[in-house]
């Protein structure tokens, strides 16, 4: 319980802290690098310390560090940010160092890591280093392992990155609300041995979800289930960059789930193996071949495959409503309802009205004005027309001629002649006959 005296003391400390952080203390701290661009940054090659192949953070970046007396020092600043969820829609979120999610922290197994955390949020926070083996007092659960970081204060965490693998970091103070605001980040601890399970491309992203009502910018932080923006690294299709690979590359995709539901991540065109879980690397004999792997709440998964098949392959969450942007959940089904006559009446009252939904929800590429700062429910145009997707959807682009270190979008795949599905041009008599079971067969079929 906070007494009045204690409150006053904390408050004054907070004020002193804020000023100190800006003027003196921060001078001794590593730079708090910041980035506002939502594009995928080039992987950050390690300038010092043990060597490793850096990861590519989807629509994100890796936080630079300062090596000081053999300790890697990072500086995270928790602060309100404006994040472009996709072109045409910005969200008022909370993040680290100018972005939500925060920058990826990359260290090597055995590194001594010191993390300064400055709180520029209006409320206290803390950082939990999800999945790490570390001293109990560094685990970041406010109240349990440490005092919460008051606004304006800077805390320092220090531990050894003992186990290689895939991790996350997120607040453990007012957790639900702060994560609903997008306060989270990715962590990769590379193996000490660079030849251990090497890959050519190592992509990472966090799965997150928001409830941002059409026409608004700030998430409804008290929403528990009814989210309408399903994002990877706080980006929704068509705002998510493609994952690119040179044909034959060994590709790893690391995924962390900080939403409140599970996500079956599905890759087209390739089978992959789940090579990493929350606890570390999976022995080759235990790796399951999959085309879809479910990432449960709070879990991390690493999947690997050889990108052998050239083309633009969909990569998405297989919950179909997670590949949708905001939609009216109370909109009744119009399927099968002839609206022609009624539409005439309605246009007399609402001239801009256009009947929709009679044959399905497809807009057939039609663009209509929608509320400001709102993404279309499904959108995107590919080489063959509307893609009609949203949310957790992007592509894996495998190209033969891609330069080894290039992460640039190579554009749409040009399929060789005769390898694209196309309308049947011949006569229908040439088609194989369609066999329908007799009417009675259905009933017996149900019984059998």
């Amino acid at each position, binding site marked *: 319980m906070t007494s009045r005296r204690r409150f006053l003391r904390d408050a004054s400390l907070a004020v002193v802290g804020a000023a100190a952080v800006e003027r003196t203390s921060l001078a001794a701290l590593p730079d708090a690098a910041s980035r506002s661009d939502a594009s995928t940054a080039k992987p950050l090659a390690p300038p010092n310390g043990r060597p490793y192949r850096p990861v590519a953070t989807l629509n994100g970046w890796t936080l630079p560090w300062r090596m000081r007396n053999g300790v890697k020092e990072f500086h995270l600043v928790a602060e309100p940010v404006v994040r472009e969820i996709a072109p045409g829609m910005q969200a008022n979120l909370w993040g680290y160092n100018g972005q939500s999610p925060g920058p990826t922290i990359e260290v090597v197994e055995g590194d001594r890591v010191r993390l300064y955390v400055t709180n520029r949020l209006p409320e206290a926070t803390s950082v939990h280093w999800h999945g790490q083996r570390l001293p109990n007092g560094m685990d970041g659960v406010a109240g349990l392992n440490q005092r919460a970081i008051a606004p304006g204060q800077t805390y320092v965490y220090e531990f050894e990155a003992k186990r290689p693998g895939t991790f996350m970091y997120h607040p453990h103070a007012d957790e639900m609300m702060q994560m609903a605001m997008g306060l989270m980040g990715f962590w990769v601890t590379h193996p000490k041995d660079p030849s251990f399970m090497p890959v050519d491309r190592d992509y990472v992203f966090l799965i997150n979800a928001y409830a941002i009502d*059409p*026409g608004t910018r700030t998430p409804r932080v008290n929403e528990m289930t009814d989210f309408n923006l399903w994002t990877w690294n706080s980006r929704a299709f068509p705002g998510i960059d493609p994952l690119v690979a040179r044909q034959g590359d060994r590709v790893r995709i690391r995924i962390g789930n900080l939403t409140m539901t599970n996500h079956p991540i599905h890759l087209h065109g390739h089978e992959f193996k789940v090579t990493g879980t929350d606890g570390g690397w999976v022995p080759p004999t235990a790796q399951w071949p999959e085309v879809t792997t479910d990432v449960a709440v709070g879990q991390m998964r690493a999947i690997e495959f050889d990108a052998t098949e050239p083309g633009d392959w969909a990569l998405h969450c297989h919950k179909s409503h997670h590949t949708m942007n*905001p*939609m*009216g959940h*109370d*909109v*009744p*089904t*119009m*399927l*099968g*309802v*002839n*609206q022609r*006559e*009624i539409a005439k*009446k*309605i246009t*007399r*009252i*609402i*001239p*801009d*009205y256009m*009947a*929709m*939904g009679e044959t399905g*929800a497809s807009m057939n590429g039609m663009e*209509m*004005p*929608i*509320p400001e700062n*709102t993404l*279309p*429910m499904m959108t995107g145009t590919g080489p063959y027309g509307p893609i009609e997707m949203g949310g957790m959807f992007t592509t894996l682009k495998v190209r033969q001629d891609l330069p080894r270190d290039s992460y640039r979008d190579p554009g749409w795949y040009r399929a060789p002649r005769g390898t694209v599905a196309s309308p049947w041009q011949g006569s229908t008599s040439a088609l194989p006959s369609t066999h329908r079971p007799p009417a009675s067969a259905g009933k017996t079929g149900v019984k059998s």
Partner: protein
Amino acid sequence: MTSAHLSPMTAAVSTSLTRNATASRAHRRVAYTARRARRTPLVIAAIATLALSGCATFSDDGGFAPVADATQQRLGKSAVWARDDAASQALAKQRDDLLARPLDMDTAVQLTLLNHRGLQATYAELGIAEASLVQAGRLPNPRFTFQRVQGGGDVGIERTWGIDFVRVLTMPLASRVEARRFAQVQAQVTQAIVAQATLTRRAWIDAVAAQERVQILEQTSLATQAASELADGMARAGNFSAMRRTQENLVYADTAARLARAREQASAAREQLARQMGLWGQQLSFTLPQRLPALPATRPASADAEALAIRERADVRAARAALDATASDLGLTRVTRFVNVLDTAYRDNSATGSASERGYEISLEVPLFDWGSTRIAGAEARYRQSIDHLADTAVAARADVRTRRAQTLAAWDIAEHYRTTLLPMRQRVSDEWLLRYNGMLASVFDLLTDAREQRDTVLGYIDATSDYWLADAAFRESLGGGMPESSLSRSPTEATAPVASPASTAPSAPATPPGAPPATSPAAPPATSQPASSHQAQRHGGGA
């Protein structure tokens, strides 16, 4: 007719009476020659006719010109009194011309002035009053009576040549009274015209507003009908439950009831307007504009309203006329205290065997001195009373005008709030619904429900606009029918769509548009303040 004309005539009549008349007592038989009796009234008649010539004739227009002038000045409309069939036919032609186009408020008032039979009946009062006036200015017809009494061998013959002599004496006074009465009737007729014009205005506003409400409810009905039919389709396709479907059907059925009620009210309002314009039969097919006139673009100032009301209001004018009359009465007593006889006749009695007696009698009921001073004191008190009454009437009139003006301004503010704020906001909501519908964030039922809910705002706007025009009509009436110059110079804007048309784009900012005048309080005090009224009343009274 003025007293300047009357005085010499009075003197002439008095002189002739003194010289020619012989005093006689009632019922006394006097031997007399008929020849002489015949001559005397002729002399008087000749003198009187000479004196009065030019004063006691009928005017060409029955005294309607001042009324028509006042009507033109106050209402800007021409009033016509149809006094014969040709005039009636001309009026009917004018009426039919006016009925050929949609009737705006002004045309409705004009039509009323031309066509309302009640008003025409009121105009006839002028004719009646003028007849009295003319009669008062003419010599009374002489009376001749002959009586023969036979009894006891005695034959008595009584012949009387009579003239309403006091009437001759008081003819100037009577003319003055009748002239005053005639002016009063003219004022009353003018007032009746103003009152009828106000009734027509009110009826017109009610009728057009009721018609607008019907239009809105028809739109609403269309929206609910579409929702209802769509719900039927949804149920057939297996997308709606019976409950959901019936809910939509219910809303439509409810709207139908509202629409029927609104239509009945519009029909009644239209009948009321027809009655106020005096229309019937085929004339009833007149058309009204779709909408009420747009609000004046700027807040009506009407700073000089009180002054105008003091000048023009019927009650103030009546009080002033009463004061004039009382003042005049004070002068009247100086004359009538010498002649306080209501009726006297020149008598010429004759009986066989008696000397002829001639003469006249004037009865003086009250001794001159006491009677006169008493009358004067009373008249003066009444005069003072009239001054106070005029002052009181003026104060009340000013208060009435201020109240009406405040009501008009408040009504304007409310209607303007609807126009510049509520309607654009309402439109914005509808636009947002459409955007949500486009984004599949809302359903067509949301759109239709919104269209239905627009109704309340638009009906509120119609009410507010109608309230403004009703307040304006009442304000005009409180000013005696006219409008102050400051208010007449305003220019009404193009009729903006009062019915929120979803097609129109809403202003991006639902605030007061730039260039709108800063809203001043409707309760702002008028430029001229209260104490002027008593001055004006006093000054007027003193000058009578």
